[in-house]
């Protein structure tokens, strides 16, 4: 763990891997709830956790150094959400051939793996789901429009498009789940730390 200054009011905590990110995210969340950390935003990334809206980042860096190391990820598990997925994506066959397995086995791999929300970004409610040990390359040419509810893979992540948008991820399926709802608290179905299963319809 290493901290970097990110301007006058923020700190970036660098971690060795995604598991350490989740451990720190959960730990910092708990510290904030207990009133031990005053941060407006706690934003996990792929290998970092950003603390923003700090009154004194240098002082917070000292505090964080004293808290290390947090308990390993998994000791306090997030909620489990099952999302019903139709495995009918236009790129499912290309993912299967990338993995050198039949399509049915590709579906088993995706649906049989417990995923976890590593971080959000790109759009409100878009969660980067980690856990699949078989990375796939992005499309060479992004699609101009990917429909809302598309379940897709890219790199080490799976994701579900909350709204229609351009996108370069490989589409493996679709869901009717509402990923982001401004009248729900929290508005995102898949917040960082949530465990996710992409259950076949």
């Amino acid at each position, binding site marked *: 763990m290493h901290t970097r200054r990110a301007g006058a009011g923020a700190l970036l905590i660098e971690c060795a891997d995604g598991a350490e990110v989740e451990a720190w995210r959960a730990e910092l969340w708990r510290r904030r709830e207990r009133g031990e950390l005053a941060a407006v935003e706690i*934003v996990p990334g792929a290998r970092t*956790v950003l603390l923003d809206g700090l009154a004194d980042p240098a002082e917070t860096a000292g505090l964080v150094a004293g808290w290390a190391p947090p308990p390993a990820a998994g000791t306090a598990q997030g909620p489990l959400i099952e999302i019903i997925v139709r495995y009918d994506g236009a790129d499912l066959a290309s993912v299967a051939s990338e993995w050198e397995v039949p399509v049915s086995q590709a579906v088993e791999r995706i649906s049989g793996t417990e995923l976890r929300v590593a*971080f*959000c970004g*790109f759009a409100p409610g878009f969660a980067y789901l980690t856990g699949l040990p078989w990375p796939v390359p992005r499309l060479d040419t992004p699609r101009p429009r990917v429909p809302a509810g598309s379940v897709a893979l890219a790199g080490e992540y799976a994701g579900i498009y909350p709204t229609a948008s351009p996108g370069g991820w490989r589409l493996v399926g679709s869901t009717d789940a509402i990923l982001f709802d401004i009248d729900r608290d929290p508005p995102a179905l898949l917040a960082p730390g949530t465990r996710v299963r992409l259950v076949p319809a």
Partner: protein
Amino acid sequence: MIEVLRAGPLTTVQDLGRPGFAHLGVPRAGALDGPALRLANRLVGNAPDAAGLEVTAGGCSLRLRSAGTVALTGASAPLSVDGRPAGFGLPVPVPAGAVVTAGRVVHGVRSYLAVGGGIAVEPVLGSRSTDTLSGLGPAPLRDGDRLPLGEPATPSTVDFVPWQPPPASLALRITLGPRADWFTPEAVAALLGTAYTVSPVSNRVGARLTGAALTRAEAAELPSEGVVLGAVQVPASGQPLIFLADHPTTGGYPVIAVVDDVTPLAQAAPGTTVTFHGSER
């Protein structure tokens, strides 16, 4: 209730934004020139966080159904009520049914029009701000839109507010990092030692700059990480982009430095010269 007669090129509802949801991918949004919105609100007797209109460059025209008070701040622009010139940066009484027109800006980019009672559209995640990146909040105004107003309070009695035109060149204080070490020493020297120009493709997401390209020392792809307001992100072109209120919450390009206060960029017209200096100056 106000009726939008002419929305202009980009007029949005803005308050002080919706911080606290970045971990869910929700940008902060909010007025780019926060002090100007707060001043406009104060002039008409609103709370500082009331929603007003951020009017970009080309002006707009509205009709107030009931008598009220308006104030125009930020980028200087001619204000008129039923065609009669009215004061900039002052509380202006408006009769019922009168047409309020903010003209094309003279100095700056974004004017703020506050109306007594505030724009009372339904808040989204605690804010009435339009987020042009994610589409949260009310859509940018269109001709014919009707916007509800809140209950007005007593307007301010000030009759003079000092105002200075935005400078032709900005000197912005930065803190290097978090990824300054991903760049060559020459790139850091260029950022601190050469002048950049605000590009016309700048918007509420970011102020795009043109100038000396900032070259990377580290060629690896940066895993996505959280970014802050004022982050100076450097995409593959090497031309820096300073993130403003509608910036994405995470990004995959390294951030060489962070601008301490982005407020002046709200009023930096294309062609404005920008230089950067560290806090030691």
